[in-house]
């Protein structure tokens, strides 16, 4: 049996080195202060994101750069596959499923817009990822399909076919893809949790904790949306909740949906589980930040806290691999947010408020 040191010594050292090279807050700040998109992109020229500037200079198309960024993000996982094996490799593949599901969701959304909502999808269709991740997803066939049955047939060789088939009637009846998307997410998290369960004890503990925090994030996000945009009964909501959350059990989520006060619940969690974050939260509350934003920040801080805990703990676990992916994802989200804000000429203060 491979020892944790043999398993993780090389890859975790490599990832730790990469973590130390993540873009600094100073660079992000400079990008926020930039006067135009061109000027914000120039700041990235001395970073691994130089390609964004190169593509933009060549095409003037930020979306094309973002597509390249997505490919790069997927390649991070594929690149790491070379250095891992066994259960850890399975976990990384399970994480990759998220990108495939996103790709599928995008294609189905375009089909839905074109066929059901009768909207023009010319431009949006140009920026859908077409590269293979795990399974062959016939993106063009999905976009150009006549109905969901056709899409399901096109995905016959993948696990997504059954999910689409099962939800197609609801999608048409409700005129919304929301429940189908939730079903796909459920598939992703179920697969991820079951893969994590197969890891060694120490790895399992770290992985389930991080995945649990991510599930909390997803559940809270949905609860907010269920409450604001859908009129769902508590029973319906509870069937849609993803099991396996770390801080938010079914009881708390139920309370969050009925009491309409998610912030208070999160504060309670922080007081008991993350006392170190209390000061930060009270200062943010004073800034009269919107509830949605505040919740986002609280959850992000919890995630960062968990990552810091892993990074300062035992170095030979899968936690380092997961932390790296999450930190990289957060970095990419921030860069994309700033660049889009620059394209739409959003003020510095608003960008800072959102980030």
């Amino acid at each position: 049996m491979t020892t944790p040191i043999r398993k993780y010594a090389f890859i975790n050292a490599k990832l730790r080195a990469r973590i130390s090279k993540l873009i600094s807050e100073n660079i992000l700040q400079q990008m926020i202060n930039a006067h135009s998109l061109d000027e914000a992109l120039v700041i990235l020229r001395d970073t691994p994101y130089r390609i964004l500037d190169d593509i933009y200079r060549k095409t003037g198309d930020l979306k094309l750069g973002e597509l390249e960024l997505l490919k790069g993000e997927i390649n991070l996982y594929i690149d790491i596959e070379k250095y891992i094996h066994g259960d850890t490799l399975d976990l990384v593949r399970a994480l990759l499923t998220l990108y495939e599901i996103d790709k599928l969701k995008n294609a189905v959304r375009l089909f839905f817009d074109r066929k059901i909502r009768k909207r023009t999808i010319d431009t949006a269709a140009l920026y859908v990822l077409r590269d293979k991740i795990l399974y062959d997803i016939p993106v063009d066939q999905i976009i150009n399909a006549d109905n969901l049955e056709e899409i399901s047939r096109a995905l016959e060789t993948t696990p997504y076919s059954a999910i689409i088939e099962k939800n197609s009637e609801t999608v048409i009846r409700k005129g919304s893809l929301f429940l189908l998307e939730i079903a796909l997410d459920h598939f992703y998290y179920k697969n991820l949790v079951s893969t994590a369960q197969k890891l060694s004890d120490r790895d399992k503990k770290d992985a389930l904790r991080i995945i649990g925090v991510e599930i909390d994030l997803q559940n809270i996000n949905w609860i907010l949306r269920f409450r604001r945009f859908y009129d769902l009964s508590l029973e319906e909501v509870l069937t849609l909740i993803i099991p396996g959350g770390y801080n938010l059990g079914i009881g708390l989520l139920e309370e969050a949906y009925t009491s309409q006060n998610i912030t208070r619940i999160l504060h309670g969690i922080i007081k008991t589980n993350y006392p170190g974050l209390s000061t930060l939260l009270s200062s943010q509350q004073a800034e009269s930040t919107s509830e949605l934003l505040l919740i986002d920040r609280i959850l992000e801080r919890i995630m960062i806290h968990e990552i810091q805990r892993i990074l300062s703990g035992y170095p030979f676990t899968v936690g380092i691999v997961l932390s790296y992916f999450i930190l990289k994802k957060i970095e990419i989200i921030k860069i994309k947010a700033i660049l889009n804000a620059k394209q739409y000429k959003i003020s510095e203060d608003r960008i800072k408020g959102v980030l």
Partner: protein
Amino acid sequence: MFTARMIKLFAVVLDHDADKVTEELLREGVMQFINITEIEHEWQGRLNDVSPQVSLAKIAMIRKRIEGFLTPLGIYPKTPGEIDLENRRPVDLEEENKNLDRIADELQEIRKRQRTIQQEILKLEGLSRQIEMYGPGLTETVVSSRYSFITIRVGKVHKDNYQRLTDEMKDIPSVLLTIHKEEDAHHLFLIFMKRDTERAQKILDRAGWAEAELSRKLISLKPDITLNLDEKIKQLQEEQESLRRKAKESMGLHSRDLNRMWVQLRVNELFYKVQSYFKRSSRTMIFSGWLPASKQSSLAEKIIHAASGRCFLEWHEPEKDTALEVKEKNAPVKFRNPEFLAPFQMLVTNFGVPEYGTVDPTPFVMFSYLMMFGLMFADVGQGAVLALAGLFGMFFFKGKKEAWQNISKLIVWCGFSSMVTGALFGSYFGMAWCKPLWFDFHGIISSHPNKQSYINDIFDILSIAIYFGIGIIGFGLLFNWINLFIKRRWIDLVLDKGGVLGAWIYFGGIYIARYMIMYEYRQLPGSGVIFWLVGLPALLLYAKGPFNFVHKRKKGTGKEFTLMTPLNFGMEWIVELLEVFAGYLSNTLSFMRVAGLGIAHVSLMLSFFELARMAQGQGAAFNLWSLLILITGNILVIGLEGLTAGVQALRLNYYEFFTKFFRGSGEVYLPVSLKSRD
């Protein structure tokens, strides 16, 4: 050997001379300013800050903005010169920002057009991808299949509607080919994405499209379709390229103004930066800072001239002045090494900046680092490759980051060092093309030593490394004594483990070890000799504790004498002795890695030769495989061994040599000048 002697200036000038003096200070560029608030004085409270006319942060921000426009063009603004200082004019930051906004908007317009074209390209590429998917078998069956994403239509429109149809179809990714022209009608072949059917149909209806049957002959037009699409894509790509060029040219046109603007901003930024260190009284300005003593008279002359003699200058020498703020520890360190030592100075500063007034080991590091590298990586051919790689690096990084320039130079030096030692050991790409000037390293490792040489086994090689290490440690101790002498730390000079007593024990120990080796480990020197060489200094070392105790008591900082005090002295003495014996032994043996890596280098080359011989076969001549093995072997050895030797040489310098004397508590001298980087 020593860093530059520094002197501190305290100056008072009249308020209305301040600008002229500032310009002179900037022109001379020798002052490292210190904040007057750091000086404790009764008049401190009566001084006010000098607030610059414009915000330094804002100037820096706009300057960086300009760099953002220029650097992608490969233009790096040059540091301002004296002429720029003479032409300095106040800057209107708002106006400059507006100018930059105008340039940014201009660029934005081009980007918008680029984006539109790019989307057209992507649409056409999508269509092309779909057509290509069918390969040569674009048959009626395939085209009309439910899985096909493209629609092919054949029909005719009235000649008056043709232009309208062409224009409107441009909004949809499509190919429109004229098959045949009649007097009043155009027969057309149209292809578009199936998902655009509804939009396309509306356009066709407006143009009065009359459908015809899709014949086999028409389907065979596929090469024309792809040709037409490729042509369209090519045109758009050319247009895209010309827009990219236009954006670059447009920036190029502004580059001169931007450069000028940058220089003005930089000069103003530096000017106000100097004044930010000034303090103001009711009618005077006060400033203070460090400069090399060699620049004292020229700077004094310039300040007096600028202030027309109405100034007060006070000079403080760190060695003589006892005032708290002038103490040596506050004086910045200015290296005095010639340019060719820059890579070795980089190695030193990477470890730390030597304390002011102490030995700067840079020249010695050049000697020790190159010696160590050469001994570990001795080969004329491989050294020449390294030197060439370094020269390429110097050329490649010219005008770019200084650190990379220095690393390239270091590689060149290392290459030359390898060539010299390679010639001494007779190694040329691992082969013995010439007779060794010193001894045959390869012969010794492969058990064919030259019996006439006085170095003919591995133990002799290890001895060379050990003697070399003793020499390096000896120099480390010597530098330590010089530092302690300069700092007048007499107790440490005599009684410390790095002082005279430590060295006495070390060299005494070496004599005893050598004596034992000479007598094949069977005999020790006489007990009297051992006592004089090791015992006596070890006993004398005990005196360090009491001496320090008395010294501190005299200064009023020591503790009270108790019964535990002599015991503490004893404990300290034992620990010190352990450190001396174990530390010096391990430091010296550590140099065996020099021999070890040298042996590994030769062994690796011998292995590759053996592999090459196996590939070439018994008695056969060199073949391609054996040549490839030798080339790959050399590349691997240069890459891996070169890196290892470089790292180990650095490690030996840092941990076995520097730790004997180096106190990296110095602060680098950073004057504010026109050449300042930050």
